[in-house]
């Protein structure tokens, strides 16, 4: 079970009570899985900052794998590869739009 380094940026760090942590995840776990684990670990206020409604992530939440933009379905730790460092951030007032 790989361990990842996790950076909780901006208000998420305050809500979690820590800005950096480590987390063990299943092989093939996705960004969404990590967010779900975090919501369970840090409680309802943190979960509300992540999820717009049950199972639906806020549109203004961004996750990064090794500083690169990540989609919710992206795997973060795959066999034979070094697990990515994950950073999670809320970006209100964003201008979206990308292929």
């Amino acid at each position, binding site marked *: 079970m790989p361990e990842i380094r996790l950076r909780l940026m901006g208000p998420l760090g305050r809500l979690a009570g820590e800005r950096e942590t480590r987390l063990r995840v299943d092989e093939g776990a996705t960004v969404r899985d990590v967010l779900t684990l975090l919501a369970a670990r840090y409680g309802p206020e943190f979960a509300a900052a992540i999820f*717009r409604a049950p199972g639906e992530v806020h549109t203004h939440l961004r996750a990064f794998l090794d500083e690169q933009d990540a989609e919710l379905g992206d795997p973060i730790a795959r066999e034979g590869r070094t697990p990515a460092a994950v950073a999670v951030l809320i970006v209100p007032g964003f*201008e*979206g739009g990308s292929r």
Partner: protein
Amino acid sequence: MTTDQWIASTCGLCYGTCSIRAHVVDDVLVKIEGNPESAIGRGRLCGKGVAGIMTLYDPNRVNVPLRRTNPVKGKGVDPGWREISWDEALDEVTARLTKVHDDDPRKLFIQRTTTNTAIRAPMMMFAAAFGTPNSWAAGGGLHCGNGAHLIGGLYHASWSLVPDFKHCRLAIYFGASKGHGAGHVSCTNMQDAADARARGMRLVVVDPMANFASAKANEWVPIRPGTDAALALAMVDVILNDLGVWDAEYLAQKTNAPYLIGPDGCYVRDAETGKPLVWDAARGHAVRYDTPDGAALALEGAYDVAGVRARPAFVLLREHVRQFSPEWAERISTVPAATIRRLAREFATEAMVGSTIVLDGKRLPYRPVAAIYFRGSQGHKNSVYNCFAIELLNQVVGAADVVGGALGFNPVCYGHPETGKPWYEPKSGPDGLMITGTWVAPHLPYPISDPKHPSTMSLGGLFPLGMFGPTMASSDQEELWTKFGLPYRPEVMLNYGANSLLSVGNSDTVAETLARIPFIVSFDITLTEFSEFADLVLPDASYLEALDSRPNVPFIFNHPAGLGAWSWPVRQPVVPPAGQRRSAAEVLIALVDRLGIREEFNAVANTHLKLDGPHRLEFGTPYRHEEICDRELKSHFGAARGLAWFKEHGVISWPKRVEEVYWRAFLDVRVPVYWEFLIGLNRKAKPIANAAGLDWDDAWYDPLPRWMPCPSHEVQDGAFDLWGFYYRDTLHTNSFTNENPWLDEASRLDPFSYTIALNAATGRRKGLRDGQPVTLESPHGRRVRGRVHLTETVHPECVGIGGCAGHWAKTLPIARGKGVMFNDLLEVDWAHGSPVNLNLDTCVKLRIAP
């Protein structure tokens, strides 16, 4: 040796941000013109833009950092400014912010102006990196957009809308001045509107005052303030129920009109997927809304589905509007019933439902009518239903983002031909309803978040339809924060250029809220009434001395609609900053490093600015503002077109495509004519509000619009027999330009700028003479003084005032004592805010006396 050059840049005297050329001789700016190379203005420039030279060279500019020595704060209180060094100033700001950041970042309150949009991205990125959700635009949204921009986003994936000037045949403006006033792409819109009128487009303006748009329209329809929904709903009733006109294909394919509604008002959903069901007349049974080949979706009838009797949402809409007869609407709005019927008939007829047109080889729907709403209809407690009701006019005849209709600007962009960037388009979201492709407010219009116990100063979490809330500066903010158990209070305010004393509501209330904030830092170019509450003033570079790679907040906020060109300009210094002035964007980046939030800031910048490939910021590396601008431009337009290229050329342009402008026909997205989501929102929000002791009225959460009275409509005391409202004077932008001597001179020559417009017959009946000093008083005892101007161009029940003049600061010698501060008549509290989107009501009952 004389140097003589023209430098391409961008105006900053309103959020229209027209492209300009600055003539500089021997490092002195001598003239400003419009830049014909850019679609944003197309070489035209308004009086404000030309007068920018006087703002640059204002002898009262702040040139050095200033520290307050007088601990007492109040209106008219001299702060006792002491000049300090930048190092001293930044040390103090860093110390204050570090304490707050370590304690609770939410204690930082960020305030910015809507006048200069250049700071929007840096301030929002700073706020996100710092970790505070408490940010607002000092009255922006409360007055001008919590409703209009929400509806624009829900229906057009756009911040705002205009008629398709090139093809529209009949435009009805409800409290809007697109093409006739200041604001979004004003100079381009002015030419487009004039060309449309010359071509034959009819313009009808519904407004309490015949000013900028009405005076040039075919018809002015005077209306009592805040009653636009009554008029629009009666028009919809006539169109649907008397005339029997609607665009069935559009409604079935592009809206939720065919969605089946059960007895509980909610969608009847597919048991397996939870998706809303529609009735397929061809198949003879209910299917999911997204079933392929669903071309025969019923808009009428009643059906037994999933054990309940269900009807299409369109049936409910038609039934709902039957109660809003023209006679009913006349009693509320004062618009004669015969006029309402005629306008409805003209709108329905000119819509030419079923017609098509070929553009660029593509056959497209042709609906040459548009109902346009903005500040006038939206500046009320009932802004959501006002704008919703008006938008239904476009929706029922299918005149939304099709040729000739109401166009959002600009929800679809497929990018520069060489890079395909910037790229965005709306997509289908929960229940098939549209999600905007890009946006500029704190959250998207849709999908709507579940309401939650509020934890921000604006109480926004409980009101997910709103952008900003009055509790940022309301008389009852402490009471409301206590009710909801807000676990912190603002300790530091970072202000950019806003003068919230004038821009929010009555200045006494705002002053009380500011005086409670222990430390206020303000970036300013001159000292204003707001400065009287600041602890530190930092001398900002003006828009003619600063750099910005995205001055138009591309392209959703401020870019021409319709076919033509895309243009991405930059802003660059045309002269170097004088004195110790610094660009606020550069100062914020310096603070980022001092505060140790560089990783956060760079991560936000990568996302917010869409930095791409080798142009992304490494999280741990420091970058200057200029480097970030360069990387943003290269991310969009390729490595060869960075900041150096843009400094030389000023702007890049390329042609728009039919698929971008008339996107509705090409994209499979729906919009809601029935707001089923309000039912769930109400169910979840109400218990939270009630638990905190907040009154709640379910009527604001009906899925179909109705006219809801503003507080001014409920005043019983007959002595208050006038409705007061303010309008945006084209000569000015917010309170910012009153100090410009050229614009002041123009205002003194203008009979309206600095006066109180009162209907002449009403004035004579009251024994008032033109030019006579008068006092206006609200039921709450708020008073303003000014000179009355008797005119035929204002509704007999109303007084209209150009906002926001009436400065009193000694540091503004040109502006001081000129005009009337209308906002001083406005209450800022829960009772005057919308319980659905937090809009502030900006009409007020008044009495007038010599």
